[in-house]
């Protein structure tokens, strides 16, 4: 069963990675999305937009709670990922196979995909809090995950595992509210004290 899954994973990898090196524009775009910085940084800044996008204070308070849960989800998914990495040691595709490599050679294990876990943690956590705004997180997350396979540094199975891990983390953080409640409460108390401190000034 496992062998069959691994061969399916490799077949899918070859389909996607086989597209690399054919079109210089597509290669450049994929290299940009594959980058360690572009998508994660953009998602981080989108969280700031999410915190400030409300129209009234009541909305701001909901957004503040959502942002805290996003950060908790990212932290939890990173912890779960480290746990999986200690248990599963899967080499990168370029170690065992001939691939079209458009990226540098990462030295850590391949399973699960670190970028997929991180970027989809942003998406799923936002999705549980604010369905409408969360869709802004999906295209960058999807493109980065796809680009990692395209550039030859991850198998599709690594990406899928990262997505599932992110979903599990977001679900846990939103389901087990007692995890985030203390931090949300502290943030809301501070927000309340600061934003109700009105005064008539010259």
């Amino acid at each position: 069963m496992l062998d069959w899954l691994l061969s399916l994973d490799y077949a899918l990898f070859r389909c996607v990675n086989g597209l690399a090196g054919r079109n210089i524009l597509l290669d450049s775009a994929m290299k940009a999305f594959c980058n360690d910085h572009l998508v994660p940084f953009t998602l981080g800044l989108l969280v700031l937009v999410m915190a400030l996008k409300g129209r009234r204070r009541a909305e701001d308070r909901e957004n503040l709670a959502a942002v805290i849960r996003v950060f908790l989800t990212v932290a939890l998914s990173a912890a779960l990922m480290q746990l999986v990495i200690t248990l599963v040691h899967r080499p990168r595709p370029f170690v065992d196979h001939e691939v079209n490599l458009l990226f540098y050679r990462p030295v850590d294990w391949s399973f699960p995909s670190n970028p997929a876990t991180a970027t989809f943690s942003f998406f799923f956590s936002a999705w549980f809090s604010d369905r409408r705004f969360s869709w802004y997180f999906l295209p960058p997350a999807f493109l980065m995950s796809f680009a990692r396979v395209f550039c030859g540094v991850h198998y599709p199975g690594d990406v899928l595992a990262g997505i599932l891990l992110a979903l599990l983390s977001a679900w846990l953080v939103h389901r087990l509210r007692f995890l985030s409640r203390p931090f949300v409460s502290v943030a809301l108390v501070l927000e309340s004290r600061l934003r109700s401190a009105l005064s008539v000034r010259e």
Partner: protein
Amino acid sequence: MNEVFHEDILETFLFFFLASLGIIQAMAARRGWHGLSLYGGRVRENVNRALGAGLVIFAYAWYFSDPLHRNVRNIEALMSMVCLVLGILAAAAFSLLAASLSEYLRRLRRGAGVGKPEGKGERDRRVSLTGGTAILHGVPGAAGAGRRLVMVGEPGGLNRRLLGILARSLPPGTEALSLWTSEFPTLEGEDPREAFRRPLCSMLEEMETRGVFSPQGSVFLGLGWGADQLLLARRFLEGRFRPDSLVALAPVLPGPESPTLGDALLSNTPSDILGAVRAMKPWRESRFRSLLRAWIPTCALCVLAATALTASLQLRWWFLSGPLGGAVASLWLVYYLDRTGRKKGVSPRKSWEEKAASALSSLELRDGECPLTVVLPGDIEGGLSQDIASRSGYPGFNMVTWPDALRGKFLLEGRNAERLAGLLFPAGGSQAGRDHGSGHDEVSRG
């Protein structure tokens, strides 16, 4: 190699700082947060948006123009996350400082911040009272004046400088007194409405008993929280001092939908907000004290335990992640310790804002004997004016909206002080609340 690594950390931090600053400025324009405006006045919406977009575009173009940041691993994910958080915090801090500084300079330029502080003018007389301070303003020609004005400022003397400026802009022949209670009520124990009202009433009684100033037949003006105190003490004032009229300028009133008191960011600068928090002294509240008592030892224990753990596991950055993790864990623990206490009835459930909102939302403007005018600034929550109108029954009640006036930047429009003086003592001789319709005001009668 090490040099490149450190340089990358700095560049990544700068990228987040610039991009976050751009986003904060663009969002401040969108939300109309005049308090965060970098220009010392109102939000210039298009300028702020352009500045925000420009900063974000510049940050991306600059950072990713370096090939090192495109397809080569440099700093690790954890450090990127730290740079993100620090960059956002630094951008927020810069916005807060720059907005406060530029507002300070604006006040200096407009002459609002120069001049002598009130109570130190040549003809001003400062009087210390039980629970507050009063200042008798020596307006030329006030001796034997027919016009008397009592100005109630915000607790803690938040707007004492504005009171002084208003006193100087009054028409000749006006005897003016400004006063404020020294502290905001903690709203613990006694009825919150009483806690706001009582100190003001006792101060006015003391003034009369000591023969310093008789508020009989005066026009009463309340500013901000002082207006709330005035409205809550209305029945007492009418029974005791028979005021000529009451004017509530920018009272703090909760919106009709949510239990909040408004949004200070709409017009107050961050330094004003901090000043107000300092005057409110939340650390006097028993809940805060009990939380602090529980948190300090818990935090110390958690930090020690977490640092010992990270050091023994030889984790990277253990000297940073240990204390930080311990401090975060202590917050979590103390929250549930406090929650258990609250379930046992040890500490109160409602926050200060919720208590103040519930006290002020039931503010009744009916049943008065003297004319009342409520002046609402442009930065009030939508729907609030209708809510106030529906709460008002006195035939002489007037609600005036000044859309161009901001609570936190009242003198931004150069003629607001004169406009207020005209509202208090109209040229025709009629007093506030009886006839005050003028050019740009939006007036409605309750």
